[in-house]
């Protein structure tokens, strides 16, 4: 049997787990581990410029690939810098393993230099965490962490490693466990057949059905089944912000995203539905609007891997706990055996109504303007036109630009739309794009951002230079914290408290100073050619600083505490 030090076991376990890349930043508590990294080449370490970016990079990779992203940071400030990224992953159920250095075991609790209680600080935002006590436990702990992170409802797992147990002078027998067995952790593997049968009966009887699917479908790898089911039943479908791409965005059955900034037809169809098939969603407040007024005539079928998500906000009439892919597969199989279908006439009538909603207000209408000034909505439409035939991943930051991207870009495949939906983390998009690009070097990876958000992790331009990550940054520059400003205009009589930054850098020069390509686009006529040129530069990072109309708001917008159908459609029109 092989003998390794604790530090070597950390790195070897990662390699044996099949980890290709780790994102990290060194420091005192981790020096033994970094030395072990130096002396091997199975695992590649990517040095970021801020630990928060390491977590988002790992997260972006995880969202695109479905595999856990791995982060390595030192104790104290290194560990605390990951908190935003861990919380971001937690809220969106993203598999991630974060290894943090810790002061030597004997000094824990003494307020030693760079000591922080990482397990304590991260407790509310992790799926699970470990403080490793003995070097011999390192392989099994890492194995468990990966198992927990990626099974059931995925999530981040923290492993805190005291420096003394990584001591290069002490060697231990090493073997990486093949299997994990935990008596206290057994996520559901199948949906209950009785419940599935009940759900089918309800679907067959539906007159005004809608499918409402979310991130669970993307994460749970159930897009194929969802698409087949929705098409075979011929039901209208809407996706949450996290669920985009779970069903092809260009299919006519797709009504657009639902919720606070959801489309008119999607929100209306939800409100009037008699049966809602909710798959991998959690009835988030950004979807439901006022809970008491939510979809008054709907019976709800709710499929989710996490029982705690079911009937948390909205009572489910038919709860089904299980992996969404397996439950949908079971449903498809039964439908084929049953040789039954919903009432064709009723569904046709329902479609007539839905199409009326769709054509009366459009899906996401906006004022095209004078044709000179670039509307942010238009910028996304052009981005879609330019990239739709390429193998493209779109990441985004948080704000109006994010909503515009979710509304106007049509995602036909899962895992292609990567954004922080649950936590809403500004600064997420750019490092996330880098994580995607590293693993999919031949794909186009574009980050849709705003001048506010991009400045929250702009230091990563340096990481991109070092590792040659030619992503495209689409900066919808409205010179304001647009989403904040929109609320201030709508709810605070236009008192724009601190939503304006009067000191923006010249982004073109800034990125050029890092050795990348910068572009500034101010007129609509220049937009498409510039974008085509940017995407043609396959091996360069291109930062497109696009001046967009700051007066635009994101519509529709739910009217607070109303029902799903209560929304502003423009600055002056409401339902």
């Amino acid at each position, binding site marked *: 049997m092989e003998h390794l030090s604790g530090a070597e076991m950390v790195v070897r376990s990662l390699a044996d787990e099949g980890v290709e890349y780790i994102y990290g930043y060194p420091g005192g508590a981790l020096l033994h581990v970094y030395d072990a990294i130096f002396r091997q080449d199975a695992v590649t370490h990517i040095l970021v410029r801020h630990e928060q970016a390491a977590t988002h990079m790992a997260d972006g990779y995880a969202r695109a690939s479905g595999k856990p992203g791995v982060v390595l940071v030192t104790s104290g400030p290194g560990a605390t810098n990951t908190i935003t990224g861990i919380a971001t992953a937690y809220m969106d159920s993203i598999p991630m393993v974060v290894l943090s250095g810790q002061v030597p075991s004997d000094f824990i609790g003494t307020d030693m230099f760079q000591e922080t209680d990482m397990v304590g600080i991260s*407790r*509310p935002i992790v799926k*699970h965490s470990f*403080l490793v006590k003995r070097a011999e436990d390192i392989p099994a702990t890492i194995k468990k962490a990966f198992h*927990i992170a990626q099974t059931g409802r995925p999530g981040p797992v923290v492993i805190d490693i005291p420096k003394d147990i990584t001591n290069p002078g002490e060697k231990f027998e090493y073997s990486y466990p093949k299997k994990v067995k935990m008596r*206290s952790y057994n996520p559901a593997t199948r949906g209950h057949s009785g419940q599935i049968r009940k759900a089918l009966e309800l679907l067959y009887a539906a007159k005004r059905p809608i499918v409402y699917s979310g991130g669970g479908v993307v994460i749970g790898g159930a897009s194929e089944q969802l698409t087949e089911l929705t098409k075979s039943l011929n039901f209208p479908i809407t996706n949450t912000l996290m669920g985009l791409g779970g069903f092809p965005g260009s299919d006519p059955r797709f009504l657009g995203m639902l919720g606070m900034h959801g489309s008119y037809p999607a929100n209306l169809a939800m409100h009037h539905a008699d049966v809602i098939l909710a798959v991998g969603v959690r009835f988030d407040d950004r979807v439901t609007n006022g809970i008491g007024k939510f979809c008054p005539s709907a019976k709800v079928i709710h499929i989710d891997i996490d*029982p*705690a998500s079911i*009937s948390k906000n909205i009572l489910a009439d038919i709860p089904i706990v299980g992996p969404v892919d397996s439950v949908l597969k079971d449903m498809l199989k039964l439908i084929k055996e049953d040789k039954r279908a919903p009432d064709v006439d009723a569904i046709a009538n329902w479609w007539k109504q839905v199409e009326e909603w769709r054509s009366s207000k459009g899906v996401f209408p906006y004022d095209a303007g004078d044709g000179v000034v670039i509307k942010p909505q238009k910028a996304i439409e052009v981005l879609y036109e330019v990239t739709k035939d390429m193998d493209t991943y779109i990441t985004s930051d948080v704000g109006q630009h994010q909503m515009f991207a979710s509304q106007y870009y049509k995602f036909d495949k899962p895992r292609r739309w990567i954004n922080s939906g649950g936590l809403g983390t500004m600064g997420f998009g750019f490092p996330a794009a880098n994580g995607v690009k590293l693993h999919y070097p031949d794909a186009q990876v574009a980050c849709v951002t705003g001048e506010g958000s991009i400045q929250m992790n702009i230091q990563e331009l340096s990481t991109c230079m070092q590792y040659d990550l030619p992503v495209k940054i689409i900066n919808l520059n409205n010179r304001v914290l647009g989403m904040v400003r929109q609320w201030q205009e709508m709810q605070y009589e236009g008192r724009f408290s601190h939503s304006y930054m009067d000191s923006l850098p010249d982004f073109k020069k800034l990125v050029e100073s890092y050795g990348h390509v910068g572009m500034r686009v101010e007129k609509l006529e220049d937009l498409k050619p510039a974008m085509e040129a940017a995407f043609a530069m396959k091996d360069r990072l291109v930062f497109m600083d696009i001046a967009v109309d700051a007066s635009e708001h994101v519509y529709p917008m739910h009217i607070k505490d109303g029902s799903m159908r209560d929304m502003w459609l423009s600055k002056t029109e409401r339902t």
Partner: protein
Amino acid sequence: MRHIISVLMENEPGALARIVGLFAQRNYNIESLNVAPTEDPTLSRLTLTTIGEDRKVEQITKQLNKLVDIVKVVDLTEGAHVERELMLVKVKASGSQREEVKRTTDIFRGQIVDLTGSIYTVQLAGDSGKLDAFLQAVGSVTIVEVVRTGVSGIARGEKVLSL
């Protein structure tokens, strides 16, 4: 309504912190809580009481079940169960009070487990209502110090909470 939730969990450092943290984080209340290892030293049994509507308590048990260290969770109040709490009370007992306190203790089937010239220490076990009633009977003027374990509970009959 008051619920008694019984939890079987890994006897590992941090497990208790996760449970208590969950309650704080999700704004659930804990009325009482006790925890100790079971006959199998790798497992601990925790009992907590909380007050809330059924839907909230259902959410609490689901959230508890999600914690990786937790093996099993039951809401004992859903079925027939036995609940007990232990209390130690120091009461002033001098002169005529001594007889009075002794008599009250007997009525409640308590025991005097320690005494000085002016103090009795009374031990009492029962459901929480009985303990409250005792405190009321002796009266707040007489009470010097109270310590209660919080509720422990177990299902009646054949039902068991085990691996």
